């Protein structure tokens, strides 16, 4: 089993080699001989991928591994180790992470060609892969937290990859900081877990879980259910990492990073860590109904919320980014509804089609010389057929067209949500349905605006329009296969399948709360098909037939449009409430008044008080010796009188 260690270690060594010698390697082999830094990373990730496949096979054979590697921190009875837990959930994540990572690595060879930070890019990609693997392979909370923060760091590096751009640097910082807000809760959650259970190992925690159900804890004066508090604190972390409401604002900005990064980190893997974490800690959530409802509500609201924004965005990557947020909302819905397996299933299918979408967008950008505005595209179908067809497949998949992978997962989520029987599940289900419609609509809006109709961009650009190089096209095709076929591992019973995926994960996350009746299954399925087709049709009608309609709608619903277009003004709100406030408080009250005036005032005030009184007192010092002598004599007089008085017993 030792080779498991190699899965994260190989990308790590790739990172180390690359960051230390990457530049040298490029220099040694020169510009002409393009055996660049990517080979090291590629090799590392590819081997990790192969090993992951082996690991999956082992898991399928029933070899679940839970082993400690070494003790990381010891303090009192806190013993945290670095170790690996390779079970079904991990296996799925391993495949997703390594495969998408591998494809993105390949894609990046072409995409990042000629960039001066080429080696840096690949080393960070490798580092990310390592971190993500550490995250998913963790067997305790603190290691999870370790991976959690490390992927955040890589995200920071990669978003800010083009750090000369101020927007990129700011976006990177924003991503990190917003995540920190989530991590704040997460870390407290971890501590609470430790203080409650006395351990941080998943297995031990879950074992001790039944014992603490019903215990109360006082938080800020409120007596609350302990498990709920833990679960909600953990959810905090998940919200941050998975860009759910209200901590979603960083993800759209993260699109400042290179597109492969968006595909890998901000679509397929890192952002899904939140979902993974909830699934991983499923027993805790299962123990708290409140927490589950919260998660579900957050998911539903986020899904709808992000989808509405996606409707009007013109930046192709931002549309996809909001779509990602929306899809992550679905996964949260599933987890909240207790259908962790389907959350993970959606994660799994989403990884493929969303990565594909991003990579296609990257391909388009590549052709468009970095242009992102879909209003300035159009008719690219004939120039880049591979991109078009793969993107179309991905869009169909995300829209939930039957038979494609997205259909299976989304459909199941909607069904399980409705059937969960939790409070508000109905509302969330309606939101999910609406989102399904919106998803189809905006996805195809992108397709139609980008690839159909006439080219609306700058004339000269037409000469540059071309299909991407093979290194980029190949991953697209591979991912397209995934987007189409990935769902086949989880065909539900109602469609004659075996629900194999959920069965596979059952040992880890348990069964979904309720299957729902067969009728329900069919109704939901029908409705979701209806929603997706309606969406696609609507998009086709608006953007292919009545091309002036969007303009008219936007004008007639001016306020709504600008509300959506400006993303509900969330960024502005945060800027106002959080950023400005912090800065203002820091600048004014704290720096100037408390530190500058009060403390420094006291510190400098004491000496100046002394100086002031000294200035008054020094007038006594006339400088005239006669006065001094007089005072001396007076003193002598006083002394003699005192002695005399003592002698005469007056005093």
């Amino acid at each position, binding site marked *: 089993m030792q080779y498991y260690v190699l899965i994260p270690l190989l990308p790590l060594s790739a990172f180390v080699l690359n960051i230390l010698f990457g530049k040298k390697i490029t220099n040694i082999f020169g510009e002409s001989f393009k055996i660049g830094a990517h080979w090291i990373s590629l090799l590392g990730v590819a081997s990790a991928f192969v090993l992951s496949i082996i690991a999956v096979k082992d898991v399928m054979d029933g070899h679940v591994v839970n082993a400690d590697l070494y003790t990381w921190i010891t*303090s009192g009875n806190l013993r945290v180790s670095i170790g690996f837990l390779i079970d079904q959930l991990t296996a799925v994540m391993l495949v997703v992470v390594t495969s998408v990572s591998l494809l993105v690595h390949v894609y990046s060879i072409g995409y990042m060609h000629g960039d001066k930070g080429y080696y840096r890019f690949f080393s960070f990609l490798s580092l990310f892969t390592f971190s993500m693997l550490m995250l998913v392979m963790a067997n305790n909370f603190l290691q999870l937290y370790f991976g959690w923060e490390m992927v955040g*760091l890589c995200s920071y590096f990669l978003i800010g990859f083009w750090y000369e751009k101020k927007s990129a640097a700011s976006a990177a910082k924003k991503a990190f900081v917003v995540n920190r807000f989530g991590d704040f809760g997460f870390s407290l959650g971890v501590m609470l877990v430790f203080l409650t259970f006395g351990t941080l190992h998943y297995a031990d925690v879950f074992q001790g879980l039944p014992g603490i159900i019903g215990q109360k804890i006082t938080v800020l004066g409120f007596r609350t259910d302990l498990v709920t508090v833990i679960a909600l604190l953990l959810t905090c972390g998940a919200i941050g990492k998975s860009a759910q409401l209200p901590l979603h604002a960083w993800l759209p900005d993260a699109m400042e990073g290179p597109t492969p990064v968006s595909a890998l980190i901000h679509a397929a893997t890192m952002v899904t860590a939140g979902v993974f974490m909830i699934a991983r800690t499923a027993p805790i959530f299962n123990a708290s109904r409140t927490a589950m409802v919260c998660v579900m509500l957050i998911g539903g609201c986020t899904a709808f919320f992000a989808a509405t924004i996606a409707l009007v965005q013109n930046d192709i990557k931002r549309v996809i980014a909001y779509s990602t947020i929306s899809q992550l909302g679905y996964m949260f819905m599933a987890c909240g509804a207790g259908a962790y397996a389907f959350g993970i299933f959606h994660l799994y299918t989403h990884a493929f089609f969303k990565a594909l979408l991003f990579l296609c967008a990257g391909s388009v950008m590549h052709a468009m010389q970095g242009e992102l505005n879909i209003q300035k595209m159009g008719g690219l179908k004939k120039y880049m057929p591979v991109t078009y067809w793969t993107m179309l497949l991905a869009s169909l998949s995300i829209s939930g067209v039957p038979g494609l992978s997205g259909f299976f997962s989304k459909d199941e989520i909607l069904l399980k949500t409705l059937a969960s029987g939790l409070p508000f599940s109905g509302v969330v289900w309606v939101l999910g349905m609406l989102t399904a419609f919106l998803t189809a609509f905006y996805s195809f809006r992108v397709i139609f605006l980008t690839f159909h109709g006439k080219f609306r961009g700058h004339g000269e650009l037409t000469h540059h329009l071309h299909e991407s190089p093979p290194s980029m096209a190949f991953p697209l095709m591979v991912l397209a296969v995934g987007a189409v076929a990935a769902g086949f591992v989880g065909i539900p019973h109602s469609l004659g399948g075996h629900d194999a995926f959920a069965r596979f994960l059952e040992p880890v996350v348990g069964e979904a709360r309720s299957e729902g009746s067969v009728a329900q299954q069919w109704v939901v399925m029908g409705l979701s098909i209806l929603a997706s087709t309606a969406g696609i049709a609507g998009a086709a009608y608006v953007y292919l037939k009545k091309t002036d309609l969007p303009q008219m709608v936007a004008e007639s619903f001016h306020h709504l449009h600008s509300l959506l277009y400006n993303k509900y003004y969330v960024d502005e709100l945060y800027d106002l409430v959080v950023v400005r406030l912090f800065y203002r408080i820091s600048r004014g009250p704290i720096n100037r008044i408390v530190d500058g005036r009060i403390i420094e005032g006291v510190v400098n005030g004491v000496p100046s008080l002394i100086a002031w009184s000294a200035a008054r007192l020094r007038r006594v010092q006339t400088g005239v010796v006669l006065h001094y002598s007089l005072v001396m004599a007076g003193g002598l007089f006083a002394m003699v009188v005192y002695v005399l008085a003592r002698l005469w017993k007056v005093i």
Partner: protein
Amino acid sequence: MRFDYPILSILIFLPVVSGILLIFVSRRFERAIKWFALTAATLTFLFSLPLFMNFDKGTSRMQFIERHAWIDDWGTSYFLGVDGISILMVLLSTLTGILCVSISWYSVKDKVKEFYIALLLVEGFMIGVFCSLDLFLFYIFWEAMLIPMYLIVGVWGGPNRIYAAIKFFIYTLVGSVLMLVGLIVLHHVADTFDLLKLMNTQLPYNLQLILFWAFFAAFAVKVPMFPVHTWLPDAHTEAPTAGSVLLAAILIKMGAYGFLRFSLPLFPQASVAMAPVMLVLSVIAIVYGGLICLAQSDLKRLIAYSSVSHMGFVTLGIFAMNGYGVQGGLLQMINHGVVTGGLFLSIGIVYERTHTRQIADYGGLASVMPIFAAFFMVFTLASIGLPGTNGFVGEFLVILGGFSRNRLSGVLAATGIIIGAIYMLWLYQRVFFTSVNERIAGLKDVSLREGLTLLPLLILVIWIGVYPDFFLSFMGTSVNSLLARLHQGPLDQSNVMNGVISGAGAFVK
């Protein structure tokens, strides 16, 4: 573990004597002086390694004890020894000594000889502070260190150095004088300065309280805790690089060390009773120090304020009074020394090139000095407590300690991490990212010397981050016995104790 030779005395007096020897060297031999200082510092470090190797982790007793009669009438002896609490600080001091000599190689241009003399003296006295087991001896080292440090700030500092140096001096002195009064009272009561004997003396509660506050004055200023921190930004900012590093890495640890070594064991009941106050101050320091960083436009000043915040973690850990807290606090002391030391070294490196500390004068440095940017990045990350770096381990343990002592303090301390990320990353962005500011265009990347100066700290950052157990194992036993002592005494009736009992209950045997 006993040595044939007095290793602690060697550690203290090797730098001191070297410094004194330097006095007799003509100032014309600048190179020789530098090499001599480097050799002395390196030798000191090498001598400290056997200490490290032969340290017995299994006992909480003092080790490498040296005791010689000194002033018998006063109950004072020359009494040295280390335990798990101090040994790491000694090592950090010896390491920092080398780095300070190295970083000043070219940046100190005038009065070179005197600078290195001061530097070596400071190093020796600092080690003395950490090794003294006699309160009188401790006080002597404590004060003696102040003089060369004052000179370093006041002579080789920035434009506003005199103000900063005097402020530093007076602040510290006022605190120290109160401690001196406390020492005298203590001696009056117990008739000895011997720490170990004093620890066996049960002092009345009221006296403990008074003495606790007297010692608090000295230690809190050094740490510096919240309301008495304003000397730090000035001193840090105006000091030369080596001075800042010494201040950040060692000097301000002496305050926290003092709490652990003297306040807690000597006045256990008072410490326990006063812990809530200390916790409040610590939390204020964490949040306040973090917030105030956002308003800084001066690189060193920002880092200085971040020190306030980070030292807030240390005191929080110490006064959480449980295993996690104290161990975390101790580790955080090392961490802060390494990280902030590294940051100041880095700033020194770049200041040597640009001669400006204003953040606004930078921008795009990552394009100009990529290797430097990488170093700085690692220190930044460690500063904000990224897992895998040392900062995480310390902060996690401290917050865990604080959290188990008093949830609110843990929660508020954790916000410090958010704020830390904000200001450090914002700093990094303003300095290293965006387009290249013309003022810094064409700067040379770090030289081999500078790289080698930063490298040990970098290694420590990763080492402690990945395998902190190595370091934690040094302090475990000592911390346990300290805590046992802290909680064994008759508990005060005041209800502030409840938190402690619940938090550390599991820990106390």
